[in-house]
């Protein structure tokens, strides 16, 4: 049987009609006429009749979006919850092909020319440096054509992707805004709609940065514009999962209006893209009792390693010994598993030992951002690698932590 075929079957002595959905060795799922799916053991069910014609969902072509606004916005979908929609029969998820429905829900939408392209359909945990390069190149192409960029992206690794593009673009003519959703866009309560509305409005700003736009809180009111290199997903499931760590959001969108909260880099005159990335960088999370050999195994063949140490940036004595042995071949950087606040290796003897072992403290740079930055710098500026790692390039290092 094929998904969508009409069937007649009996289950425990009663006869039913339905549509075949799926089956495996043990069980079969059928949609009944009343819309409900039931799943039953194969031994309990007897298929009596199968109708040949398959009810196939049409793949609807992208509508020709009317262009009436003055601001060009290119929406690139890459997958993730926001860019996908459920198959109402099987429950399977597939990419959204038609975003024209957006028009109905966005304030002042007439100011914008929306374009749309399905770049990819990938769960964000599978995004890697090759994908980042693709996204960046596509963004450059569209910015060169004077469009702002909105990238629909899974929220899981959005902060990594946004940081990657932040570093790769040394200058940019338009904002690049990542957005996503924590509740899928096939449900009426999805946060996607307001996130998109906010992103479209943010896209008309003169922000020459790569940002993340997501809910500010759990209500459908405000959308925050986060600097990509300082944002972090801080909740697994809430709408306001993203937070700017140790700083203010750049801006807040509410009901058609944007309020600026912090300084930002203005758009530049050219799009300068350095699209090389070095994959051989890793993050290691220190924990008490970590064994030397385990740490060694994790890091010995890496170009650079971001250590998420405890507190102000510490690891145990035995690990420092390993670092000392390896630090001629591997660059070690220190971030903190505390997430908030800066590392400081001057305060405790462990920190001073780490400095002696050539570990480089990154102040309040997020570990995830640090990894991406190391991937970028080691591929493009290996001569001045350590120095640039310590230098604030895209707002990834706060000079001052205010709260």
């Amino acid at each position: 049987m094929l998904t969508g075929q009409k069937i007649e079957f009996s289950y425990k002595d009663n006869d039913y009609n339905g549509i075949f959905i799926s089956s495996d060795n043990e069980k079969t799922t059928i949609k009944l006429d009343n819309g409900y799916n039931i799943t039953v053991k194969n031994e309990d069910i007897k298929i009596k009749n199968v109708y040949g014609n398959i009810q196939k969902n049409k793949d609807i072509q992208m509508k020709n979006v009317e262009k009436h606004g003055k601001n060009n916005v290119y929406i690139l979908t890459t997958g993730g919850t926001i860019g996908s929609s459920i198959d109402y029969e099987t429950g399977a998820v597939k990419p959204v092909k038609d975003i024209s429905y957006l028009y109905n829900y966005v304030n002042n939408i007439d100011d914008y020319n929306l374009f749309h392209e399905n770049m990819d359909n990938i769960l964000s945990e599978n995004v890697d440096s090759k994908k980042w390069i693709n996204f960046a190149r596509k963004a450059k192409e569209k910015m060169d054509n004077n469009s702002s960029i909105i990238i629909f992206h899974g929220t899981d690794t959005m902060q990594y992707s946004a940081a990657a593009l932040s570093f790769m673009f040394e200058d940019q003519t338009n904002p690049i805004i990542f957005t996503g959703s924590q509740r899928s866009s096939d449900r009426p309560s999805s946060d996607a709609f307001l996130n998109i509305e906010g992103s479209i409005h943010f896209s008309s700003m003169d922000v020459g940065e790569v940002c993340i736009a997501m809910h500010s809180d759990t209500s459908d009111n405000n959308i925050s514009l986060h600097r990509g290199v300082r944002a972090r997903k801080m909740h697994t499931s809430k709408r306001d999962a993203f937070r700017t760590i140790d700083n203010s959001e750049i801006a807040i969108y509410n009901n058609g209006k944007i309020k600026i909260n912090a300084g930002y880099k203005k758009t530049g005159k050219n799009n300068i893209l350095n699209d090389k990335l070095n994959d051989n960088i890793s993050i290691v999370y220190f924990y008490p009792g970590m064994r030397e050999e385990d740490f060694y195994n994790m890091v010995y063949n890496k170009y650079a390693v971001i250590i998420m140490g405890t507190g102000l940036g510490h690891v145990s004595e035995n690990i420092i010994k390993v670092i000392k042995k390896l630090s001629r071949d591997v660059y070690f950087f220190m971030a903190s598993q505390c997430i908030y606040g800066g590392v400081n290796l001057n305060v405790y003897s462990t920190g001073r030992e780490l400095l002696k072992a050539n570990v480089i403290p990154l102040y309040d740079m997020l570990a995830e951002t640090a990894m991406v930055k190391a991937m970028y710098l080691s591929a493009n500026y290996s001569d001045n690698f350590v120095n640039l790692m310590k230098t604030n390039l895209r707002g990834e290092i706060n000079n001052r932590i205010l709260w």
Partner: protein
Amino acid sequence: MKIGLEIHFQLKGSKLFCSCDTEGEKTDFVIERKMTPVMSEMGEMDSAVKYEYIRNRKFIYHTSTNSCLVEKDDEPPHNVDYNALKTAIALSMGLHCKIVDYVSFMRKLVIDGSNTSGFQRTGIIGMNGYIKTSKGNVNISTITLEEDAARKIMENEEKAEYSLDRLGIPLIEISTEPDIINQEHALETAKAIGYLVMSMDNFRGEVDSIRQDVNFSMGYGRVEIKGVSKLSFIRDTVNYEINRQESLNEISRILKIKGCEISNFSDITDIFKNTESSMIKKAIKSGKSVFAARITNVNHLMKYNNYHLGKELADVAKNMGIGGMMHSDEFPGYGISDKELNNVYNLLIKGENDGIIIVLTYKNNIDQLLSLLRSRLNKIINMDLAETRAATGNGETRYLRPLPGKERMYPETDVPLFEINGNLLNEAREIIPETMEEVNSKLNNEYKLSNIESDGIINNNLYNTFVKLIKIYNEPRTISRLLLQTIPELNKKYNSKIGNEDIIKILNIAKNAGWDRSNIEKALEIFTVKKININELIKMDELKSLNDDEIKKIIAKLINNNSITEKNIIPSFKKETNSTFNAKKVIEIYKKLKN
């Protein structure tokens, strides 16, 4: 005539998809949400959904002590509550259903804000059962387990406010086939099912814990009437619906012959520039316009004798948030002057048999309204009356929205398929509810209660309590009297509500202290009046139970003074003390001392 019922009832304990309790109180935190209509893959939007979206309301949710991120739609659902599932299976068994091998939950789109997710989770547990009635078996098509919606606190044009306390409470829905033959039969069936339901141990038993929907058909399409709150309204509602459909049938016949069309709406605001009608004045002031359309051949069908076509059309407007549609059968009225009316009639070229409708609304609503009115009028003329209607508080019904299609339903992928294994089935078998007949016979034969008593226990849904209390204090007549008389009287007298757990505690004390019925009643009254801790009761003089020494002392005194026999020892003993005592013990000790 075909009637089917859908009976919903709440379970207490844990919510269906999280660990929150079903009971809770309001907290201060409030969240605000919007709902966005989600189109099917075919690019079509459910018209019910469309209505809500046109209203574009905000939804305010008040959190409660019994809500967590799941109710806020800020976390995926947890696994289905085991107890609720067990109850649903047991009930399915009690109604002779086939139990599914796996529970697959579905999402049913709901966009009125009553679900924070925008859908209700629901899954089939049992299919193809029946319930016995005096008119033969009524078949049960499905028994589903679903989550209850948020409780509406208030609503107006701009927003609806809900409390999250009710959202997610397990709800079992029992749907019968349209096998019910008339109003009386519907009532009987509802009662029989209701009895089973109420006898489930974890039936919630609060106000509104049972809600009925009535499916009704007399040949003009299925009408689904939502939310018949009382059993007695089932009859009224069906009667109302029969009258309504018969009247529409007459209208249909007339209009089929004469023809009937709605003209485009004309903006007639200018006519009312200086109107005396306060309603129209107010609407114009708030930026609305006045629109009128002509409907051919409906004069005296809009509201005249048994004809109520006007209401059928007004309901459409009302669902769009457009209140107060006026029509020519009501004119003159609403403060509209004859001159104004003439101007309107002239402008619209009203013929003698034509009707006029006037609505007050914003310009951008009017096209939508016209198309909905035309489609509704068309359906009436063709007597395709299938639709979803709402039961009103007075036994009537009103148009709510088209019947939902199965497109409204798609799989809830966040909740994994749950296999109903042998273990669970065995556990469910333990709690299959008994039918009214079975219970009746037990009360009469096993517990030796009178018919009046057993009827009282059954009708007041007290059988479970009765069985529970009997296990503690094995005096069926005493328990029956407590449940049917003492406690209701105390509750009425002191405007109190004695909980089952309190009764159980008091009966435990009574058992240990050897209290008789009057002691128990005394204890209940003291507890009700003084609101003291139950454990304090035993220390009160009036209720203190005499110990052996104290009993001995009194008996010794009685023996010395009087001619005490085994027969009069108890009344004589009673005169000597205010405290309670174990009569058996008294006799026992008396015998010992006597010898």
